[in-house]
């Protein structure tokens, strides 16, 4: 097979992206003399229509049976060129890309060395491509039902969106009622709409919708299967177990608030009138902002960034607290019109629609803003005997450079958002990853923010990172767009590149069983063999490397192909010597 291959090699200069550092003509000149290369050309933009057409025409003219494109990362344009050679009549997997942009021109500043490396990588691709095998895409049926985990505003929105499109939904909520964290909130910033209004209508529609099965006091016990074909067990009220079959899963498990008692200098738990933002929400919902003794506070200090943007606690910004603090200044002013309100902040993050205006309006309502260094937070102590206020807040105000002492009857701590304590369990359950702070990781932070590394599992809202309500709702709706698109197709096309276990070589040692991050490996105790569920496999190669018996092969990444690639690099090196 190898000697008979006719390989076409196409070297892209990507405008000046590659051409400014790599001598593409030199790469072409070197490559065209390699064994098996029938034609080698360079072009300014291989991914453009004329570039692709050149490949298609050459496949016919030269009778090519393999194609190498030396250009950008395969993550960028492998699908483009696979489609092109498929159009030219070749199996799409007869393509190999040599990455001479991200791995050459963009990371080197020496023309000669970058060109040498481009030659080596291209030679490696030419050596590898004859060993490529043809594959066809595979399809699996798509179950149109979905499981939504979490009944907060994200889960409610996603469930409604799917049900409105006439698709069945199971909405599982751990708590005894729907609404999640939003149900703990009084008004929403920046327009001071009632959170209750936002929720009540949704909860009402959800509970009445025949397409939605609401399961309260319920938790997902186990999930098996793969995209389009999941099976889940739901445990309700601690005992009854329901088995359901679904095609997609949306995780909307939200956040928990930072535990303010961790920050000793703020005295939460020590001083009765140091409260968290959620404590205050409760008072605002009840319509009375009062101290523990039932009196109305005269001096209220709001401290921002509690547990957020800190080297000691969470390093990230929780995004919603600044605007919520402004909302409190307004709310307290309404409940206690005589109160003096001071807002201590590190930076006022007022991005988002309507937020800057809200900040300006709040500043006009007699709230005093003081800025502190996040590395030197204020301290709260008891006021001296005989004072007409009960606490003293000391802060280094950095705009004036002065140390300021502020009297306080009540201190409100703007606690940040944290990943829930059970996020690890949820991640394991649905097979997705968490970042260092425990937030679920999206497939791509910009281009694929609601998908995850597991096909068919989506994330929405504050379980992925701190978020406000509009972003949460937008994400929830985005997940449903992704799911409905798959339901409309009726079946799911799955990459044919996956790992497979050769039953004749597997000895059932089970080393691979715990290795798969996608739970794609099953062990058959009767046959005493492990097997890979191909549609769940992402071809990461973990089990291939781990299999001590060499029984697992990654399609499209075989040992032979990789060794040939290495040989190619060495061949280039020896041609130079």
């Amino acid at each position, binding site marked *: 097979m190898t000697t008979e291959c006719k390989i076409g090699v196409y070297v892209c200069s990507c405008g000046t992206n590659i051409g400014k550092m790599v001598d593409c003509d030199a790469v072409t000149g070197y490559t065209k003399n390699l064994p098996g290369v029938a034609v080698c050309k360079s072009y300014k933009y291989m991914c453009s229509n004329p570039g692709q057409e050149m490949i298609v025409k050459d496949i016919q003219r030269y009778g090519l049976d393999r194609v190498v494109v030396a250009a950008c990362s395969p993550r960028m344009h492998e699908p483009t060129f696979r489609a092109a050679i498929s159009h030219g009549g070749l199996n799409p997997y007869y393509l190999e890309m040599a990455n001479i942009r991200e791995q050459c021109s963009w990371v080197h500043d020496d023309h000669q060395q970058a060109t040498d490396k481009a030659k080596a990588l291209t030679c490696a691709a030419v050596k590898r491509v004859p060993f490529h095998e043809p594959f066809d895409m595979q399809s699996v049926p798509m179950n149109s039902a979905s499981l939504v985990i979490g009944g907060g505003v994200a889960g409610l929105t996603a469930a409604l969106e799917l049900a409105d499109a006439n698709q069945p939904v199971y909405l599982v909520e751990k708590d005894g009622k729907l609404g999640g964290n939003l149900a703990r909130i009084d008004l929403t910033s920046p327009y001071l709409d009632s959170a209750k209004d936002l929720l009540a209508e949704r909860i009402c529609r959800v509970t009445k919708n025949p397409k939605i099965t609401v399961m309260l006091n319920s938790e997902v016990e186990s999930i098996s299967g793969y995209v389009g074909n999941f099976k889940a067990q739901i445990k309700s009220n601690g005992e009854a177990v329901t088995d359901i079959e679904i095609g997609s899963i949306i995780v909307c498990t939200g956040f928990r608030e930072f535990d303010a008692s961790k920050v000793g200098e703020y005295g939460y738990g020590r001083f009765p009138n140091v409260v968290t933002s959620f404590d205050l929400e409760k008072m605002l919902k009840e319509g009375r902002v009062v101290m523990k003794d039932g009196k109305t506070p005269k001096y209220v200090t709001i401290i921002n960034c509690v547990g957020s943007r800190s080297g000691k606690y969470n390093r990230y910004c929780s995004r919603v607290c600044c605007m919520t603090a402004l909302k409190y200044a307004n709310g307290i002013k309404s409940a206690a019109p005589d109160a003096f309100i001071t807002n201590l902040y590190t930076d006022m993050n007022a991005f988002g629609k309507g937020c800057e205006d809200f900040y300006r309006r709040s500043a006009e309502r007699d709230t005093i803003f003081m800025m502190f260094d996040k590395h030197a937070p204020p301290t709260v102590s008891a006021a001296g005997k005989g004072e007409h206020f009960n606490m003293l807040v000391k802060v280094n105000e950095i705009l004036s450079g002065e140390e300021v002492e502020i009297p306080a009857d009540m201190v409100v701590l703007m606690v940040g958002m944290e990943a829930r304590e059970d996020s690890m369990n949820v991640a394991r359950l649905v097979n997705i990853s968490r970042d260092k702070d425990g937030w679920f990781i999206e497939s791509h932070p910009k281009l694929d923010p609601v998908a995850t590394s597991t096909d068919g599992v989506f994330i929405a809202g504050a379980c992925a990172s701190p978020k406000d309500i509009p972003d949460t709702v937008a994400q929830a709706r985005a997940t449903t767009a992704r799911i409905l698109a798959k339901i409309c197709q009726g079946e799911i096309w799955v990459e044919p590149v996956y790992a497979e276990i*050769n039953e004749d070589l597997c000895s059932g040692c*089970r*080393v*691979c069983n*715990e*290795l798969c991050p996608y739970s794609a490996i099953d062990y058959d105790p009767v046959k005493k063999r492990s097997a890979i569920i191909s549609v769940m496999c992402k071809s990461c190669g973990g089990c291939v490397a*781990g299999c*001590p*018996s*060499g029984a697992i092969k990654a399609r499209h990444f075989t040992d032979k192909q990789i060794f040939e690639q290495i040989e190619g690099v060495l061949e280039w090196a020896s041609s130079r010597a």
Partner: protein
Amino acid sequence: MDKKKLQIALYWGAACGGCDVSVLDTNEFILDIAAACDIHMWPIAHDGKYKDIEALEDGFLDLAMYNGAVRNSENEHIAHLLRKKSKVMVAYGSCAHIGGIPGLANTFTREEIFESAYLKNPSIQEGNKTVPQPQTEVDGGELTIPAFYKRVYKLDDVVDVDYYIPGCPPAPEQCKAVLSLIVSGQPLPPKGSVVGASERALCEDCQRKKDEKMIKQFFRPWQIIQDPEKCLLEQGIVCAGSATRSGCGVRCPDSNMPCRGCYGPMPNVVDQGAKIISSVSSIIDSQDPEEIDKILSGIHDITGYAYRFGMAGSLLQRSVR
């Protein structure tokens, strides 16, 4: 000399002698061998001289079974000689197959080996300065001994090999089966085959119960009282069984010792040691780098575990210091 009989020779290169003994270990079958074969050389049992072999016509021998690795020029010389004189050349035992225990010396340079063996060894006379030299001038002429190579080779590094019989030593039953096949005159397997061994790993034949593997601590066999029913690797004992061809009869795990890997890599595997290392590191039950280091520190001499038999035949081959 009955020409109808099979003409055979056995030889040991850099070997311990165990392979030669393993042929004797076929017990009374040895009488069948003697009846069916003319044995021209067999260091442990038969007094064949090099000059006798040299005197044979090329291709005269039906079968040469070479055990031991190629450590010095004599080993290589006889390998070439036997290859020339035989129709079928078999690499017999781990050392000829993949380098074996002598191959572990490839992690040291020749100079280090000489220093340790001849200069700084507590069992030699203090102040000794003599190390072996290929040629030495003495009164009356020059003395020569075989030259000690920089590294150990497996047999097929120096001559063309037809078949491999793995094991340290090969199990006598396997030796018997292969010799019976050759004596019977039945068609032989394709050239290059590993014979007298299974195409599956040892776990296939090991009766211990296998479960998912999550290791928190590694042990040497004497450090724990093991569960005789349970997979040794799951108990934290580094067992090479999953990376090693079966065929030995599960001798070690059945005696409560981990598989040492002597039957060599599986058919699809290029580097057995790399497979052992990557599989062992795959089953460590921790995400914490410090804890992982601690767990790994329980494995003493990972090179020795993973490449106990396969160093010379591995991708690494030798130290290049």
